[in-house]
């Protein structure tokens, strides 16, 4: 088992790439930087593949496979080893991350070709890969936290990559600080976890948790608290309500970054975490409910915002938020498999969408406003077709990747919580609407820009090839689950089953709604029926409805949207301004905070108290010195006289003692 014994290699490769590029790459030719960056990532991918090969040969009792490399910190009972673990969940994440990552690296070589700080960009990307893989491979929550914060750092660095652009800088700060708020809860969660289980290793925690009685809706305990705290972190990281605000702004970063970090991988970390911690969540129904509600709400809410955005990347950003909402919804209703599945497919098609958007922007020479595009279909066919496929995928058109995952989620929701299911359903419709709106505005209709100013051109091959590959995946990436429709088994679910089933065994009964659905529960009735049932399920119908609506609005009657906007002006502006959330936050949190820190902390505490104390003591010393100084005439003989006085005093004392003795 060479690879399984040396999991660290997977981490070492991107790290090495980052180090080499970051430290030495400054004056290297682009080709050298490329070879280092792409080489390291693709090697990591190959390493992962080898890992998978070996993992599949493992006997079931050796899963999860944990390797401890060195003791990291030890403080009394608090012991943390640098340990990595591999199980099916990890495998899925690893494959997704490394593969998509590799593609996006390749894409970036084209997209960033004319940018400054080339080596910097790639070393950041590699660093991000390193941290993301750490997060995924971690065998205990502290190491996971390292990855967690690391990806946060990288996203900050990459959002603010164009550090001369004020908006980029502030966006980076916003992202970092907002996620920090979540991480605050996460950290407390970790501490509480250790305080409860006296360990941070997933294995120990879960086996202990399995022993604990499940908490119910009525009486919530420590588990619920822990889960909610951890989920706060997830909310921050995965841009859920109410902490989603950073993600749209994060679009200030280069598009590949948006694709990799803010669509495919990092933002899904929260979902991964929740899935990873499912033994705890499964025993905390209240937490589960919260997760579900937040997920569904986010899905719907951001979808509505997505409807009216005009910036192509912003639309995608909000759709990302809502898709993440879906994933949490899935987790919340206990369909972890579905969540992870959607995570993977989403990684494919959303990554693809972003890359396409990037390609479009590239073609338009930096233009991001959809209203200034249109009719690009002919000019950039490859981009068009791939994006089209991706759009189908996200809209859940049967046969495409998104269909399967989204379908599973909604199905699970339907079984557990009807209102949420409804919300999700509407969101699905909205999704397909705004996505096609995007497509129509961008590629169809007549050109809204001046041919001679903007010279539209298809992207170079190193950008288009990743698009094609991802498009392929966005079609077939979901077919693992296909057999279920014809009554077969869902391979994906079957693959992940041991993970999510493992701790259910000892789990007490009476909480089925919180656990993953046993495999193939739906496989009653004949295959054909199932197929029909599936293809005509409400999600599909709603999705198609959305598409039609979009077609009606933006192809058939292009004037309609404006009138609609005027007719219900208030609502429109409200949505257009994202419900004024940013403004509200600014008013409620940011300004008071600023005011307090300026007037109280700075002027009062710092200047008044601290500086006052320091200066005061200094002044005191100076005053006393000034007084004592008269005594120090500088005349050696008077000093001597003082010494004599002292000597006489001592002598007299001794004499006195001596006389007392005698």
């Amino acid at each position, binding site marked *: 088992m060479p690879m399984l014994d040396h999991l660290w290699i997977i981490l070492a490769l991107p790290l090495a790439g980052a180090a080499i590029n970051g430290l030495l790459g400054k004056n290297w030719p682009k080709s050298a930087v490329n070879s280092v960056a792409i080489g390291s990532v693709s090697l990591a991918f190959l390493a992962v593949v080898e890992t998978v090969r070996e993992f599949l040969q493992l006997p079931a009792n050796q899963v999860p496979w944990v390797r401890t490399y060195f003791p990291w910190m030890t403080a009394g009972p608090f012991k943390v080893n640098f340990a990595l673990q591999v199980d099916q969940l990890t495998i899925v994440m690893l494959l997704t991350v490394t593969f998509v990552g590799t593609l996006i690296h390749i894409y970036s070589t084209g997209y960033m070709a004319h940018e400054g700080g080339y080596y910097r960009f790639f070393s950041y990307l590699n660093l991000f890969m390193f941290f993301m893989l750490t997060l995924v491979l971690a065998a205990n929550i502290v190491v996971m936290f390292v990855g967690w914060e690391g990806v946060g750092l990288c996203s900050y660095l990459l959002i603010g990559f164009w550090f001369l652009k004020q908006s980029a800088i502030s966006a980076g700060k916003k992202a970092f600080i907002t996620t920090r708020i979540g991480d605050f809860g996460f950290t407390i969660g970790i501490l509480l976890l250790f305080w409860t289980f006296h360990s941070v290793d997933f294995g120990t925690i879960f086996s202990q948790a399995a022993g604990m009685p499940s908490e119910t809706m009525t009486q919530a305990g420590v588990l619920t608290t822990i889960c909610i705290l951890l989920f706060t972190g997830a909310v921050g990281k995965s841009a859920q309500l109410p902490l989603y605000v950073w993600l749209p702004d994060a679009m200030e970063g280069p598009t590949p970054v948006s694709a990799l970090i803010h669509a495919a991988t990092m933002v899904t970390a929260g979902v991964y975490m929740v899935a990873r911690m499912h033994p705890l969540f499964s025993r905390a129904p209240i937490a589960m409910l919260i997760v579900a509600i937040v997920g569904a709400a986010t899905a719907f809410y951001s979808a509505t915002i997505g409807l009216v955005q005009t910036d192509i990347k912003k639309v995608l950003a909000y759709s990302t938020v809502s898709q993440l909402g879906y994933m949490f919804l899935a987790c919340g209703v206990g369909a972890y498999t579905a969540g992870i599945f959607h995570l993977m497919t989403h990684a494919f098609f959303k990554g693809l969408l972003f890359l396409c958007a990037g390609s479009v922007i590239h073609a338009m020479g930096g233009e991001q406003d959809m209203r200034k595009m249109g009719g690009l279909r002919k000019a950039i066919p490859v981009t068009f077709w791939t994006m089209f496929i991706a759009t189908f995928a996200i809209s859940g058109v049967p046969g495409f990747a998104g269909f399967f995952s989204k379908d599973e989620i909604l199905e699970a929701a339907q079984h557990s919580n009807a209102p949420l299911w409804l919300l999700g359903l509407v969101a699905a419709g909205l999704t397909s609407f705004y996505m096609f709106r995007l497509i129509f505005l961008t590629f169809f209709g007549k050109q809204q820009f001046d041919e001679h100013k903007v010279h539209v051109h298809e992207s170079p091959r190193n950008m288009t090839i990743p698009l094609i590959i991802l498009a392929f995946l966005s079609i077939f990436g979901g077919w693992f689950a296909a057999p279920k429709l014809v009554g077969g088994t869902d391979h994906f679910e079957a693959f992940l089953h041991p993970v999510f089933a493992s701790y259910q065994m000892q789990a007490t009964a009476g909480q089925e709604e919180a656990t993953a659905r046993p495999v193939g529960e739906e496989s009653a009735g004949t295959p054909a029926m199932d197929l029909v049932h599936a293809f005509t399920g409400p999600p599909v119908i709603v999705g198609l409805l959305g598409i039609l609506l979009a077609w009606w609005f933006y192809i058939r009657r292009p004037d309609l949207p404006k009138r609609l906007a005027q007719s219900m002006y208030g609502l429109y502006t409200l949505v257009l301004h994202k419900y004024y959330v940013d403004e509200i936050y600014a008013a409620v949190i940011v300004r008071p905070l600023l005011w307090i820190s300026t007037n109280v902390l700075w002027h009062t505490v710092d200047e008044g108290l601290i500086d006052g104390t320091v200066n005061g003591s200094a002044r005191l010393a100076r005053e006393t010195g000034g007084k004592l100084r008269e005594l120090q005439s500088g005349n050696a003989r008077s000093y001597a*006289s003082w010494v004599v006085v002292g000597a006489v005093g001592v002598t007299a004392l001794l004499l006195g003692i001596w006389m007392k003795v005698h």
Partner: protein
Amino acid sequence: MSVPFILFFVFAFVAVGGAIMLILAREPIHSALSLVLVMVALAALYLLLGAEFISAVQVIVYAGAVMVLFVFVIMLLNAGVEERTNFSHMAKYAGLPLAIFLLFGLAHWMAHSAIGATVANGAGAPSQAAVSTRALSTMLFQKYLFPFEATSILILIAILGALVLAKKGTE
């Protein structure tokens, strides 16, 4: 009156006289010479106390090196008669009287204190045998080795300091 007493008193008077001369002389070089006188007398007293090595060292280092250095500096700076200037009040009203008081007080105490008496006629009736240099050196290089080394370093530092200061002064 036996020989040691005679010798003691002779050298004691030489020493005290030298000290007084040091105070009264107005030429620094005279003070220096009177101090040399004191030192030599003390060396003789050490001999009387049987500390041959110490007395030799006293003469070599103190009289032969340190005081020569003093004389040398005096000659170099050609320090003349010290001019009379008024005392600092401190020195005048506190320093001198107290110093003189200290002189007599100490002397009186020493004379009548238990230390002198007991030692003179009792516990440590001093043996006549001279202290062997060998024993002294053994002690110095075993019991007091570390202080010894420390002192050597101190001397090195002193040399460097003197060099630096003197150079700065003369340029």
